[in-house]
């Protein structure tokens, strides 16, 4: 029995702030930052958008793209590190807003930037065992970076939803296999009640990102007996442009393979939505038969690798919802003062 993606939907708020503008406020060198991070602007949520509203918009896009009856959804899992409530699920809000309630299971996931792909894996298990007909896995974040912190240059907002199913005729992409590599690595965290995360600076690189991404990716290719040349496209978690480019090179993937999914230069890091957004952008361009290799990374730390094969059905549903490129087009640029207001960094009352 095949398991895979029945539909997908993405959402990106329309506001952007340029790296130059953030650097201007903090007196940093924008050119050094842009060339170092390979990020030029990032998305900013509206004042009335949060991880729940973004998750709902992405989920509605996924459901309308494939004209699926939402009552078939038996599980809703939302991955985020910016759930609006500390206690009270985001996933019940999503389930109600897409019309999937009441016969379903729901829960919120948290694993830094890979909570969304952990939700995909849980849904794969549920549909494989036929416990549910369709699972809705979402990665959504309004990522926080403390004012003046390095994270502020990349922490962005966006979300992606995947409908996971097991009926061969419905799949736009078969998930051929998945493999995870997880250790207890304190490279990034946010304590209860704290507004902004802390991180280990350069420690987030080698022992965090690169160790887990490369081990998850190599593990999956060994398990499946595949190599980078067997794939048409590749997507790696994109906290900035430099990390996924270097990870691809270390593993033997080319710049051409990662190009369609490398959305971070114009979007920033959408955390739980990051790798999933890259996969969505790749599905927007892929042809039937193409194979996509993807590896998500979450600090804390772990990597989830996926081998995906696109089916003929992609051409039937691709144009029925907004593509990632369309969501990135025509942004509204704001300055740092408006950005501070949108992100709640200014308390009015």
């Amino acid at each position: 029995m095949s398991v895979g993606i029945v539909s997908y939907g993405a959402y990106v708020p329309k506001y952007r702030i340029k790296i130059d503008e953030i650097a201007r406020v903090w007196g940093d060198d924008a050119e050094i930052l842009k060339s170092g991070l390979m990020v030029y602007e990032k998305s900013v949520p509206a004042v009335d958008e949060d991880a729940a509203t973004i998750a709902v918009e992405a989920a509605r896009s996924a459901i309308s793209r494939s004209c699926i009856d939402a009552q078939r959804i038996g599980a809703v899992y939302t991955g985020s590190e910016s759930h609006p409530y500390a206690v009270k699920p985001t996933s019940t809000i999503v389930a109600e807003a897409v019309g999937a309630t009441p016969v379903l299971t729901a829960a919120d996931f948290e694993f830094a930037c890979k909570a969304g792909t952990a939700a995909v894996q849980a849904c794969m298990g549920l549909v494989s065992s036929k416990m549910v007909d369709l699972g809705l896995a979402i990665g959504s974040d309004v990522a926080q970076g403390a004012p003046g912190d390095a994270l502020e240059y990349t922490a962005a907002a966006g979300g992606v939803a995947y409908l996971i199913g097991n009926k061969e005729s419905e799949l736009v992409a078969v998930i051929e296999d998945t493999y995870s590599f997880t250790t207890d690595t304190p490279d990034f965290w946010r304590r209860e009640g704290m507004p902004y995360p802390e991180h280990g600076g350069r420690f987030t690189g080698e022992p965090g990102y690169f160790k887990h991404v490369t081990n998850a990716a190599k593990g999956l290719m060994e398990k499946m007996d595949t190599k980078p040349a067997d794939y048409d496209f590749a997507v790696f978690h994109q906290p900035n442009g430099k990390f996924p480019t270097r990870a691809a090179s270390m593993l033997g993937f080319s710049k051409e393979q990662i190009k369609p999914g490398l959305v971070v230069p114009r979007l920033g890091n959408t955390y739980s939505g990051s790798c999933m957004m890259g996969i969505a952008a790749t599905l927007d361009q892929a042809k039937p038969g193409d194979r996509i290799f993807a590896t998500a990374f979450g600090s804390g730390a772990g990597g989830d690798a996926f081998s995906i094969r696109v089916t003929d059905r992609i051409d039937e549903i691709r144009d029925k919802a907004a593509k990632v490129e369309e969501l990135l087009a025509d942004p509204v640029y704001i300055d740092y003062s408006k950005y501070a207001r949108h992100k709640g960094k200014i308390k009015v009352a």
Partner: protein
Amino acid sequence: MIIMSVPRFWRKQVARYNLVGTHCKKCDEYFYPPRNMCPACRREGEIEDYKFSGKGEVVTYTVIHTAAEGFENQTPYVLGIIKLEEGPSLTSQIISEPETVKIGMKVKPVFRKLGQDGEQGMIYYGTKFIPDKC
């Protein structure tokens, strides 16, 4: 700050999330917010739930510069009356720069935060409208 009891919001939650109203099969009239009884057909009416497409147009609007408590962070914002394709009108925030909003402008629904009960209370979600460029 929205001061509304949690059960009061929750009772109409589905209507706010998904623009679910009602329709009288007898006289073909649509209602939003939902009515349990058709005011024209009275006991002869046949009321059913109806999910609106959400597409509509701006009947009129105003720009709020001096906001109520809890909405200060959003000024200036646009509050308008939207006439849905099926007929009913409702009051909603229109998410767009004030100078871009016009009477007769086509709009479509989006899912947004309507407000919150301070820093500790409930967050209220529901439908607002944005310009429909299609």
